């Protein structure tokens, strides 16, 4: 219903790429907790960087729905690679592209569309997760420079060798007794700025997650992104957008887990027949298929609203919540269908079972999504 010819072509292209290039190495990268520069480069080459950015700035010029399909197809094979692409496009490029001045866009966006450079978005802090207004990282203007102090945590793509910088949300003052937030562009080589990869993650082990430190980190005044005091607004808008890509990861993961369960249930024989012949197993598969279908419909509708410039924040939160929760349910049942083998690393479903867990936490926990949805419906 929502798909056009080019969307089918994107789906088949990314699917083929994911199956042939990512699938064979996903397990090993997960085992070694290794970010793959090789895969990142290849993903850049086929055009997964700057998917919705116009060619004028080096992007691919595709619609939002194309982007969602690409993330979904990556997540069907591997959550980590999907995370690299989703975070880079939605959180890295997004704010620069939608809020940058012409000069900032010309300067920052093209190198981020090739696969040679990544960009991160630093919002979360050790003491400010769901409550992002609780963040403390500050920036003060002095002699035409912003001087930033503080730290960020859990920042995707924040500390790879090819990370070119980060957009940081910082407190830039107080207005009417309330914190004033602004977003500031920080290049990787700025003095006073350091980043460190976080290790020992349970999930997305081949995706880079970082801690960022700002110690009198000094950048020129024109590194302000958007207007001073626009930080909260930019952050909220970025998250509405980012939620759709997390939803796409949930949908793709659920689809992949469902396919694994379906395949395995037809091959595994017990009591003289394939286990898919037992009604209990067949009904599990039916529920999985239905959930995936529902998730897809909800997500595509939210994308349709966004693409047609209609309000989509409520639907975006619903899609994020639903797709991440069915990812959990489907992966869980898929492990059940695999029996003991589902608990072994030899089977991809084991990785899927771990990877799904982030989806109910990142970019707004399930609780926060319910908060967002309930606020909308109660004020409607």
């Amino acid at each position, binding site marked *: 219903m929502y798909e056009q*010819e*080019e969307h*089918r*072509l*994107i789906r*088949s*292209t990314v699917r*083929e*790429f994911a199956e042939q290039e990512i699938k064979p190495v996903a397990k090993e990268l997960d085992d070694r907790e290794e970010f793959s520069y090789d895969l990142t480069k290849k993903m850049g*080459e*086929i*055009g*997964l960087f700057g*998917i919705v950015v116009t*060619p004028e700035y080096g992007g*691919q*010029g*595709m619609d939002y729905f*194309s982007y969602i399909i*690409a993330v979904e197809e990556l997540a069907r094979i591997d959550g980590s690679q999907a995370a690299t692409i989703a975070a880079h496009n939605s959180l890295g490029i997004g704010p620069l592209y939608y809020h940058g001045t012409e000069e900032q866009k010309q300067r920052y966006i093209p190198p981020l569309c090739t696969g040679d450079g990544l960009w991160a978005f630093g919002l979360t802090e050790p003491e400010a997760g769901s409550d992002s207004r609780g963040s403390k990282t500050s920036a003060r203007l002095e002699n035409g420079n912003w001087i930033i102090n503080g730290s960020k945590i859990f920042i995707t793509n924040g500390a790879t060798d090819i990370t070119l910088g980060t957009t940081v949300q910082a407190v830039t003052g107080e207005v009417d007794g309330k914190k004033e937030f602004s977003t500031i562009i920080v290049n990787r080589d700025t003095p006073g700025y350091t980043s460190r990869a976080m290790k020992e993650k349970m999930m997305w082990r081949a995706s880079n997650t970082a801690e960022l430190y700002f110690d009198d980190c000094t950048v020129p005044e024109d590194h302000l992104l958007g207007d001073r005091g626009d930080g909260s607004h930019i952050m909220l808008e970025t998250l509405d957008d980012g939620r759709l890509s997390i939803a796409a990861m949930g949908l793709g993961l659920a689809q992949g887990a469902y396919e694994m369960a379906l395949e395995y249930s037809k091959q595994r024989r017990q009591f003289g027949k394939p286990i898919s012949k037992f009604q209990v197993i067949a009904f599990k598969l039916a529920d999985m298929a239905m959930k995936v279908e529902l998730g897809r419909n909800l997500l595509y509708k939210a994308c349709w609203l966004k693409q047609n410039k209609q309000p989509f924040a409520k639907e975006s939160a619903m899609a994020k919540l639903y797709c991440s929760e069915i990812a959990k349910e489907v992966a869980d049942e898929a492990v059940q269908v695999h029996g003991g083998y589902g608990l072994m690393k030899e089977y991809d479903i084991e990785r899927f079972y771990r990877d799904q867990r982030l989806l109910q936490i990142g970019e707004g926990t399930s609780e926060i999504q319910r908060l967002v949805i309930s606020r909308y419906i109660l004020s409607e």
Partner: protein
Amino acid sequence: MNIFVCVSHVPDTTTKVQVGEDGKSIDPSGVTWILNPYDEYAVEAALQLKEAREGEVTVVCFGPDAVKETIRKGLAMGADKGLHIKSDQPRDSFGTAKALAETLKDREADVIFCGRQSIDYDGWQMAGLLGEMLDLPSVTVASKLEIKEDGSIEAEREIEGGMETVVSKLPAVISAQKGLNDPRYPKLQGIMQAKRKPIEDVEPSPYKNRVEVLEMSKPPVKSAGKIVGEGPDAVKELVKLLHEEAKVI
């Protein structure tokens, strides 16, 4: 250089094909269609030739409107133009080759690539038929190919139990074998550009099939294996069954 690639629009290799209600065609419902895998090598060969020599690559496909999607895939990989020979009537290999040949004969092709076989009906005939109809040399099942500046061709072909090296000269028809190259993925930007590339429609002259399909059926379902016993004692029984039931020894 004027390069053509004849491509075929076939059911995805992972699709479980069903026989249609008439008992002699594929049931198209629920089938996803793809660019014939062997034709991907042909498109790649064409693109590499264009990149080395300059020129233009045209993707040609015979069939109903739905084949435009497959032409578009070739364009997304990097071909310049499409040529759609429109027909809702399925044709036998000879009829398809005839439509392709009459469309291509006045277009001054330097090379016409195709895949070694189309994985739907497995005719394996196109390169041979096109060569004959257009009076061009036909180099089939090429797994290695070199086209030199002077237009001479050197190709390696897989033959039963070995390899064969052949030489020929452009213009020619060349069919691609797996291993000829590593087909590229379309780039996302290529997919967008493909939307704006021209696809010319042509009508083929009428044709009556020379070969008629009477029936299509699925292969018989394999029956479950049989365990005749264990250890040396079972050998006698196994030999007996292989001799009397399976009749293989």
